[in-house]
């Protein structure tokens, strides 16, 4: 940290990383729930749903990057790019599914009365709000990453490894559903 820049209070640094960890945890939970919906309840994801999952993974990547390098806001920037991508895809899908018509009858089952693309809009707006609040409260770069071996560092590493694990599961699932071609919601291409 430069001499001209005042040192940030430890509580502010801790709160900042806590917010990031919480965002990563919530995103990991949402992505896990999506996998559970897919395999336990037979909700085969549409191509735009898969792209929305991709955007959430990209957001996780940015948060993970930010958690490991607290000296700049590059990770937050990457997360914001993917959050905007999530918002654009989910809004377009919501507008596509507004009126079921031939070729666009499938919109999946609602959760608490709200369909998945609309939930994605809420998630994207919540992420944007989360990043905005975080930047408004804690500002720019201020902290060095935690020391290796610290409990919070191990927790973060565990969470990031879990996100990579569900990303690998999603990749296998996409190959199973779509092969290397176009995706369809009619079934799994590689399953009999």
């Amino acid at each position, binding site marked *: 940290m430069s001499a001209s820049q005042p040192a940030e209070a430890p509580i502010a640094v801790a709160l900042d990383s806590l917010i990031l960890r919480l965002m990563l945890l919530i995103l990991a939970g949402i992505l896990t729930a999506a996998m559970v919906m897919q395999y336990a309840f037979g909700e085969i994801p549409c191509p735009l749903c898969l*792209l929305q999952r991709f*955007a959430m*993974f990209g957001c996780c990547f940015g948060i993970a990057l930010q958690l490991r390098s607290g000296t700049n806001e590059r990770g937050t920037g990457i997360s914001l*790019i993917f959050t905007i991508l999530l918002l654009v895809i989910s809004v377009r899908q919501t507008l596509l599914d507004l009126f079921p018509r031939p070729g666009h009858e499938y919109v999946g089952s609602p959760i608490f009365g709200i369909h998945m693309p609309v939930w994605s809009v809420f998630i994207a707006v919540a992420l944007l709000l989360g990043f905005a609040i975080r930047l408004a409260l804690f500002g720019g770069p201020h902290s060095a990453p935690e020391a290796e071996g610290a409990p919070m560092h191990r927790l973060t590493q565990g969470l990031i490894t879990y996100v990579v694990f569900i*990303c690998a599961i*999603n990749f296998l699932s*996409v190959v199973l559903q779509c092969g290397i071609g*176009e995706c369809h919601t009619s079934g799994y291409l590689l399953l009999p």
Partner: protein
Amino acid sequence: MMASVYATLLIAFILDLSGLRRSAVTCLFLSLALCVWLFLWKIYSPDYGFRMPWLQAEVAPIFAPLWSS
């Protein structure tokens, strides 16, 4: 196509875990470009282009006089 989007994303995550941060970010942006291309290809219709003609908007009666003047 979707498989390549997820494959590049997974490679980006693995490179990041391996400490190759610059390569990881490059791979992530490659996957982003593939995703944007796939998204645009998916929503493009030969009949409508990128438009959504099933969404019809009308000027509300209260504003109609203002609109015509």
